[in-house]
């Protein structure tokens, strides 16, 4: 497959939370605001790209029996790095995301891409794969966070977008709202993909 195709598949065909239904913990937990979804997505993308590249570089060196342990060490290192960088340069986002930054290490999208893709493919392809999946994840989280923020607080990226008399539907920014919103989005995705012929 071409590098371009590896990149674009993450944006629709294998869109992580909506098509593969993977990585739901951060998807549900941090998307109370579009900004948080974006921050989480970017942090995950950073880890995903780097771990994909490193795993791909080391794919012929790592013995099969210890591959998962090696991948986890690589992923965990980048997660700690992401945490330190957030703390150093984007402290408010670090406070908002809290425990979910260290939890990126157990995000199954990242280990999944390392195991299913980067360990079998060349570096450039793995980079494109990480970038595509990461970007897809970021966009998904931002959309989900955006919908919840608009309905739940009447704001989008902290700017008022609804009419002044709009009564915020605060259920949407709480945990059940995340499930309901995700359910509707998954349904919508299924309707759209049914109309488009499968590849």
């Amino acid at each position, binding site marked *: 497959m071409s590098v371009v195709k590896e990149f674009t598949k993450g944006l629709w065909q294998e869109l992580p939370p909506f098509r593969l239904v993977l990585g739901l913990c951060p998807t549900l937990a941090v998307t109370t605001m579009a900004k948080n979804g974006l921050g989480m997505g970017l942090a995950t993308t950073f880890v995903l790209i780097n771990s994909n590249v490193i795993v791909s570089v080391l794919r012929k060196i790592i*013995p099969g029996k210890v591959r998962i342990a090696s991948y986890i*060490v690589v992923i965990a290192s980048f997660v700690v*790095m992401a945490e330190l960088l957030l703390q150093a340069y984007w402290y408010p986002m670090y406070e908002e995301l809290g425990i979910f930054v260290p939890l990126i290490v157990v995000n199954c999208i990242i280990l999944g891409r390392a195991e299913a893709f980067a360990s079998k493919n060349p570096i450039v392809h793995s980079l494109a794969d990480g970038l595509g999946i990461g970007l897809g994840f970021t966009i998904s989280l931002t959309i989900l966070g955006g919908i919840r923020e608009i309905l739940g607080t009447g704001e989008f990226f902290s700017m008022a977008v609804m009419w002044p008399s709009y009564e915020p539907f605060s259920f949407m920014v709480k945990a059940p709202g995340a499930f309901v919103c995700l359910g509707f989005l998954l349904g919508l995705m299924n309707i759209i993909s049914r109309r488009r012929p499968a590849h």
Partner: protein
Amino acid sequence: MRDLIKMVVVLAVICTTSGVVLSYVNTATEAPREYQYIKFVQEPSMKAVLSDYDNDPIKERIKLVVGENEEGNPIETVVFPAKKGGKTHAVAYSATAKGYHDLIEVMVGVDPDGTLTGISIMTHTETPGLGARIEEPEFTDQFQGLDVDTAKLSDEGGQVDALSGATFSTAGVIAAVGSALEQFPQIKKETF
């Protein structure tokens, strides 16, 4: 056997590399991390307790060792001096004490006589609606003008009224302020 050795070596090399890289990143981000912490956590509180200064207390902050913890490691406190015309007229620093849930971190402003110019709650995890009211000015303003003898509960000979329904949170704040004021004589020697 060769497989086994290879596994051990590969894992060891990966872990070592990871350790080295992370320690490098940790060192490299130390200064900006400290700066962000000061900017987003300490600065708002510091501005709340200090007034009437023409210097930049953040830039002129001083690190002081104010005792030892249980393991014998030195406890450091960052002191922010408020100066006017080059003369320090108050300092701000923080202290912590146990509240109802977890530690409460309080920033205090103290003038040279050891009188509080104000306090501000920096971090806490108290119950919203009950203990979390320690953040409100109605509570924190009580501390203005008190000193080490009067910054106690009114029941215990001080001048602080406890928040009803938040005894432990109030006690936590008072304990933090008390421990801050206990450090003051030492801090005074180094700053004024």
